[in-house]
Every structure is written in structure tokens, then in C-alpha cells.
């Protein structure tokens, strides 16, 4: 048994609900070294995504989610999320269901697509490192509970591992040393979305 379009819709709704409550936190975090809009980006994007009626075709469902982000959240982060969702759409095209064990490989494809779009590299303390860490954690797991638990742990470890490095991408890059000690807002946003998935 894997996951279907209806699971995606339920997940989007949970994440969207969480996004509303963390919007301020993410704006503040983004404002420290950027333009302070990440909370808006994330909450608007998921609100729109959750409001869409998803088709049964899993690939087209991912595509709709991607388009929702493209429509309302064209900032760096929104565009990267849309790019990642597009990769998932390609991977699941024409199917009604996907296995939990596909999550790991889908995350790898999302990560690569996001790197190509944003011309970023791993190790620069961005959402890319987070997706990479989640992909590694998900690898080989084929049931939802352990998978979510692994992802949860990996997200925390990833934040911890990068906190004391300088940002090398996006607006925060300019602040160099000053970014040391601060969580990358894009990574933190991913962490909060996982909180949403876990109904925290």
C-alpha cells in the first residue's frame, strides 16, 4: 500500500494549517538577513495549494500543487517548492498511487531540479541541504510511520548541522559571518512543514 491523491490533499491541508500559524515566525527569521517575506510566501502557497481540487492522477495532483505555488508564491522559495513539486509530478505521472519507498528517490529528483533552477549547490546552507537530508533519511523506508519519524529527526539534525555555518545562497549570502548562528529561513520553513505533516 502506498499513497494516493487524497493523501496528498489531506497532507496539503495539514501543512497549510500549520503554515498560517508559523507565518510570523518565518517572516521574522527571513527579515533578519533578507526581506522578511518567507512566511507570506509559505502560507499563501499552501493556502492556495490546499484550496485546489486535486485530480486522482497523482502526477497531475502534484502538478496542480506546483501550479498553485507558481501562481501565488513566485518568490525564491515558492518557485523552488514549485520546482520540487514539478519533479514529483514527473515521477508519478499517470499513476493513481505511489509507494512510500518512492519518497526518497522523488526527493532526490526534486533536489536536483531545484539545484538546476536556482543554480545552487549543496553545502550552501539552503533548503537544498534540507531536501538532500530528507531524501537520505527517507531512503529505503516503505511505511509511513518510520518514514515520518526519520524525516523528523533528519530535519532537526540538518538545522543543527548548518546553524553555525555561513549562508552561501540567496539574500542571506551577503551577510556572510553574520548569518552564522541563525537558522536558514528556508530550512526552517521545511522543518515547520514537517511539523504540519506530523500535526504538531
Amino acid at each position, binding site marked *: 500500500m502506498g499513497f494516493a491523491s487524497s493523501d496528498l490533499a489531506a497532507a496539503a491541508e495539514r501543512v497549510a494549517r500549520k503554515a498560517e500559524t508559523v507565518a510570523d515566525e518565518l*517572516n521574522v527569521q527571513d*527579515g*533578519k*538577513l*533578507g*526581506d*522578511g*517575506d518567507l*512566511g*507570506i*510566501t509559505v502560507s499563501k502557497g499552501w493556502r492556495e495549494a490546499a484550496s485546489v481540487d486535486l485530480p486522482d492522477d497523482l502526477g497531475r495532483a502534484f502538478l496542480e500543487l506546483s501550479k498553485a505555488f*507558481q*501562481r501565488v508564491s*513566485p*518568490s*525564491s*522559495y*515558492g*518557485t*523552488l517548492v514549485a*520546482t520540487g513539486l514539478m519533479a514529483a509530478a514527473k515521477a508519478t505521472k499517470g499513476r493513481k498511487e505511489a509507494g512510500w519507498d518512492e519518497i526518497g528517490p522523488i526527493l532526490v529528483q526534486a533536489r536536483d531540479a531545484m539545484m538546476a*533552477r*536556482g543554480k545552487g549547490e549543496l553545502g550552501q546552507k539552503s533548503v537544498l541541504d534540507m531536501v538532500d537530508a530528507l531524501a537520505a533519511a527517507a531512503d529505503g523506508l516503505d511505511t509511513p510511520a518510520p518514514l515520518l519519524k526519520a524525516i523528523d529527526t533528519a530535519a532537526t539534525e540538518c538545522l543543527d548541522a548548518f546553524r553555525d555555518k555561513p549562508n552561501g*545562497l*540567496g*539574500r542571506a*549570502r*551577503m*551577510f556572510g559571518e553574520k548569518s552564522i548562528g541563525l537558522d536558514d529561513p528556508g530550512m526552517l520553513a521545511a522543518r515547520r512543514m514537517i511539523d504540519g505533516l506530523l500535526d504538531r
Partner: protein
Amino acid sequence: MKKILNNPADYVDEMLDGMIAAHPDIYAQPSPRVVSRAGGATQGKVGIVTGGGSGHLPIFTGYVGKGLLDAAAIGDVFASPSAEQMAESMRQAHGGAGVLRLYGNYGGDVMNFDMAGETVELEDDIASTTVLLADDVVSAPPEEAEKRRGVAGMVYAFKIAGAKAEEMADLETVTAVAQKTADACRSIGMALTPCTVPQAGKPTFELGENEMEMGMGIHGEPGIWRDALKQADAITDEMIERLTADMPLASGDHVSILVNSLGATPPEELYIMYRRAKARLEGAGVSIVSPLVGRYATSMEMTGATVTLCKLDDEMEALLKAPCHCAYWTVG
């Protein structure tokens, strides 16, 4: 939030409605968040498009007009437009001779404009090129100059490339002139008070009564470093020194200078800065051509200023002086 608005979510759309209504002879809005010239694309002319967030008037949409831009895609305040809106701006600007995408180096904008370029190439067979403004000297060291963000230098690129396109030069030529201009611009900013993004509702940074932010962007980002508030001459000196350290000027060089308000700083104070900047540059034997002093690239109600130097060759100088007309800038 001390702003004049209705529902913050409607800020940009109502603003665009009002702008088109106030200047129907200059601007049109063929589809939401896309502004074109009132008369549409000029057949046979290279189209120039730009795009980026709202909240910077006259940048971006304000510079659509004769001798300047053909269309602009405009996002929420300080946020990129969508790739689809950018693609539509390119369709609107296309007069059969291709389109130059001329905008500031910001992550979201670049990703979306790249997508837009791919889309119109596939769907509409429109050839296009990109020139990115990356003029803010404090946003990356010279070795990584291509990572710098784009600020007020855009104004020179719009004007000079716009004049070249108006001469019916081809896409390659217009692109080359735009790139030459982008390469010749250096900018630096400082801010005294922040601004408020309507949908966020509060300022993104706080600053003490006797502090200023140096190396300020135009998106309400904090500056690169914070300093005690100094006198106008000292601020201007520091800005000019940092710009000329990055782009050395020699006696006999011709430059234009833009002393730009980020919004609230009044022209009175820009003139005080200009007075000093002129003395410094002329003291070094540099000739100032077509100086610009005013509100050319803003962050809504932010208090502060940016200084841009644009080093001119003969071609650029002539194009800078060529006629243009939009609601914010008329030459000739």
C-alpha cells in the same frame, strides 16, 4: 501600519488600476500585473521587458514608455511576479524583433524570468536575451561581482538600452549596449528608517534614533552594516569612496550620477548630497553628465538614499541624452 491603503491584499492591483487610470496615454494593463505601453509593441523594434516586485515606483512599471521599456511584469510588494506574468510581458513587448529581459539580479526573479524565457521560446517562438543588473557593490566582493544584487543602476540600463532599441537596433546590439551599461554601473545605499510591506504589516527592521544602515538594498532588507548617523557630507564621501574603489575613475572620465531617494528622503536632502558628490568627483577631474537627483528607485516610504555612478562612453552618453517619456521621466 501608517499607510494609505484598503485591504493589504489589494494594494498592488488597486495601485495598478489607479496608475493606468491616471496615465492612460502612457500605460496599459493588457492582463493582470502586466503593464505595457498604451500603444502596444512597436513593429520591428526590439522589445525590452523588466519585472520584479511592487513598491519601487517608478521602478518597474513606471519606466514603461517611449525610449524606455515596452512592458513590465509586476509582483506583490517586493516579491517576484510569476513566470506566467513574465511570459505575458514578453509577448506584449514582442514586435517581431525579439525581447531583452533587463532586470535586477534577485533569486526569485531570475528563476521565474528563466522559466518565462523557456516558455515563450517554446510556445511563441520569441527569441530573447537576458541582462541582469548587479550594481550593488556591498552585496558581494569584486571577485563575485556576478552575485551582486541589482538596485538603482537599472535606471541607466532602461534609459540607455531603451534609446538604442528606439533606434531600431537589433536584439544583439541592444543586448550588448544594455550589458555594457550594466557593467558600467556601481551603486550603494543607506537607510535611516525602514518601510512596511502591506501584507506583513510591520517594518522588517528597527533602527535607533542615531543609527543608520549602510549597504541597504531596496527590499526592506537590513543593511550590511550599521553605523552611527553621520553628517551628509561624511555619508556621501563614504559612498563615493566605496563606489570609486570598486570602479576607479580617472581624470577626464565622463560619468552620470544618480542620487536617489528610497522614498521619504526629500529632494532637499538629495541636493545636499549631490552638492558634495559633485565637488568630490569634479575635484578628481571627472566630468558629470546628465546628473539625476530624485526618486528613481524606491522602497515605498523608506528614508534613505542610494548613489549610483554610471561610467559613460560616447555611445552611452548620447543614448542617455536621447528623448524618452514616461510618467516619471521626460527627456527632450
